[in-house]
């Protein structure tokens, strides 16, 4: 065996050991603690979860009592945020916008395994459509005009990227999306007499009242979450995951994977459009740094990874966690350290918890109850 192979195996063994230590000690202990608290709660909530499973569960997937509790606490927390988090409304609002982006990325890339590095171009298309309409057509345009047009523009751009590239197997799709976003970024600067270059275009905020603004973002986010969860748990979601696992098998079963990949991209473009419009108004403007730059695409991926790819609700949680760390908890570290810590976290999740932190939590809660043990 060569030195390199030995080193490789050594590292492999080390990672394996760390994983098993984590699993056996931390997670087992954690599960023990959760178990002590969780069992009674599970018994209490199970009847409610049962009723849900018999009705909505058919559409959205079945859950146990504790999982229901998690959903209720998260939902309650989001809906009541202005009562407990006045000082954090801006990060929470941004978290909700990014949650829309992360979920939008997830339904396409997380589910089919065709990783896109270009989703910030999609959100940018929506933001810039709104901006250009307001700047060049009519500053008084109603949201009822700008919002549908922006979402439409995003979908058109999405198809323009997807149709030629999704027919190809392998890394081509990722490369095409990557180049698209670089191209888009350069265009915003090259066409600066249209786009105002780095300065960007001013867009009116929905409202200066942070509470109202928060709800104007969170309500669409919850709608996107419900819709995408429904789609993800439906037959469409099953096919998309099947494409990720074995595209040939999908073809062999008589289903056209290209068609489904295209659909997934449209499904993805619509939320990106919604998020882009929301960000334009929350941010009071569109500029290349906030919208298009490729780092934004990477951040969406990071959020989906932290939360758990191909689960929709995972990326939602991941987005809030990421933005919370970025804008609230790690701000004290200073610019450089903050980003180092964030990317280190993403790396650790990729290496040690590929299914994402929220999926870990979800499974831990599920293991304690229901009738799926």
């Amino acid at each position, binding site marked *: 065996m060569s030195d390199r192979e030995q080193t490789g195996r050594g590292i492999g063994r080390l990672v394996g050991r760390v994983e098993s230590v984590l699993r056996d000690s931390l997670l087992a202990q954690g599960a023990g603690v959760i178990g002590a608290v969780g069992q009674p709660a599970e018994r209490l909530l199970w009847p409610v979860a049962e009723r849900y499973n018999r009705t909505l569960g058919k559409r959205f997937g079945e859950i146990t009592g504790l999982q229901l509790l998690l959903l209720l606490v998260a939902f309650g927390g989001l809906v009541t945020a*202005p009562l407990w988090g006045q000082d954090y*409304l801006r990060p929470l609002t941004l978290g909700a916008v990014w949650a829309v982006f992360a979920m939008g990325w997830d339904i396409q890339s997380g589910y089919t395994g065709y990783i896109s590095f270009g989703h910030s171009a999609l959100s940018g298309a929506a933001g810039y459509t709104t901006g250009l309409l307001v700047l060049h057509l009519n500053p008084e345009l109603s949201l009822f005009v700008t919002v549908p047009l922006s979402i439409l523009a995003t979908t058109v751009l999405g198809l323009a990227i997807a149709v030629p590239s999704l027919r190809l197997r392998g890394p081509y799709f990722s490369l095409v999306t990557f180049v698209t976003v670089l191209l888009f970024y350069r265009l915003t600067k090259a066409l600066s*007499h249209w786009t105002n270059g780095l*300065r960007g275009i001013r867009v009116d905020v929905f409202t200066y009242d942070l509470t109202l603004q928060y709800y104007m973002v969170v309500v669409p986010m919850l709608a996107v979450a419900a819709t995408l969860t429904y789609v993800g748990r439906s037959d469409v979601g099953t096919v998309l995951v099947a494409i990720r696992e074995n595209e040939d098998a999908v073809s062999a079963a008589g289903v056209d994977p290209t068609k489904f990949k295209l659909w997934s991209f449209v499904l993805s473009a619509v939320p990106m459009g919604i998020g882009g419009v929301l960000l334009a108004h929350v941010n009071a403007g569109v500029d290349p740094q*906030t919208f298009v730059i490729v780092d934004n695409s990477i951040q969406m991926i990071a959020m989906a990874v932290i939360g758990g790819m191909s689960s929709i609700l995972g990326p939602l949680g991941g987005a809030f966690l990421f933005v919370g760390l970025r804008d609230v908890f790690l701000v004290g570290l200073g610019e450089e350290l903050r980003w180092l810590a964030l990317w280190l976290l993403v790396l650790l999740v990729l290496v040690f918890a590929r299914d994402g932190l929220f999926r870990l939590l979800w499974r831990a809660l599920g293991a304690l109850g229901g009738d799926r043990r």
Partner: protein
Amino acid sequence: MADPTSTPSDSSTAYTNSIGRRSFIRATGASTALGLFAGCSGDGGGGGENPDGGGGISETVTIGHLAPLNNPLGVGSKRSAEMAVAEINDDGGIADQTVELVTKDTRASPSEARTVAGELVRQEEVDAIVGTFSSEVTQSIMDLVSEFNTPFLVTGSAAPSTVTEFVASDYERYKNTFRVGPVNSHFQAEVISQYAGHLSDRHGWNTFAVVADDAEWTTVFRNRLVDLLKEADLDVPMVNGLATDTTSFGSVLDDVDAAGADAMFRFFAHINGGPMAARWAQGEYEFGIEGVHVASMLPAYYQLTEGAAAYETTTQSGAAGVTDITSKTVPFTEAYMEAYGDADDPPSKPMYMGFVTYDAIHVFKNAAERAGTVDQENNLDTIVDALLQTDFTGVAGQIQFYGADETYAHDLREERDGDGVITNYPLTQWREDGSLECVYPEGLQTAEHAAPPWMG
């Protein structure tokens, strides 16, 4: 290139369904959570938005300061602001109230600036905001600070559009904004053209190339300056906008050389022209490097370029404190150097934004005392009127503002000598021994401009 004045003004932009903060509060009594939870909570979650009851000057006066702290200019501005506040507090504060300074980092990003400006007006409830370095950042927060009636004294960015497209075109909305310095780039262009005449008289240089950041603040140089030079019978064979992330300059230098220029006027705030100077000095290119270059204002720039900076010039408000612009300039610079000259992180001198920010805080203090209030929520007009009456001898020059009805409403007035030469935007030149001299205008000169020795 686009003419910035031709973009349609969108000042009156107001979606019919966008609700102003004050009208919303009026309509609801407080900013409760959509009525969903009305009555659920005692304080209605109004989190720090309650105007302070219309009193005069409150317990403490809070001044917010915004700057990019990853940039030495921003750090210089922050330190100068701290010095101004400490001085004012030693002197009894503003109308006997203690002054508190809250600095937030814009990270040079418009969206980050909106976030931190929001924190200043909502959570810190500041009585005024000073700072902002780039025009992109300045303009990104103007809507927000005007919504909160917060006096906003701009101390770093110089695009004329900040006043022409905002203050002058929608005065009622943006009357809270003033530019304390530097003179806006419309006048900067005039200074450069007058300086070109000076170079022509001194060295016989009559051909100039213009190379600039492809950014908002340089559009004036790429248009108006070129026209002014041509009016003065000077040749401008080359005008070039460079991407703001440019790092290689070989072709630019060759182009300027090929154009037969005697000097290159370069306008770099985003681009670091240090590598360009190194290449220029090494290649002994037959033209001077003049104009505006933010990196060249760094006190450590000469060392950073290992001496290649020698003979390049840049304008800078305050002239790096090497000359007596006013009687306060040199003492302030020395006090700064005593406090921070040995600090680990640059700058060891205030830099232009430091000079202007220091002045801005004093300007606000004087105006607030004349107005007898810092309660901008209810008395903005009184504060604005007091600011308009400003005639203050600062460290960067004599500060007066253009009136409400003028083209550059609320902008810093340029100072002119008897010949009409603008004097409050001086040029400094690095010398062979690493010293810095003020070479223009003549009234402030510490030395004559020197041409690079290889130009014989």
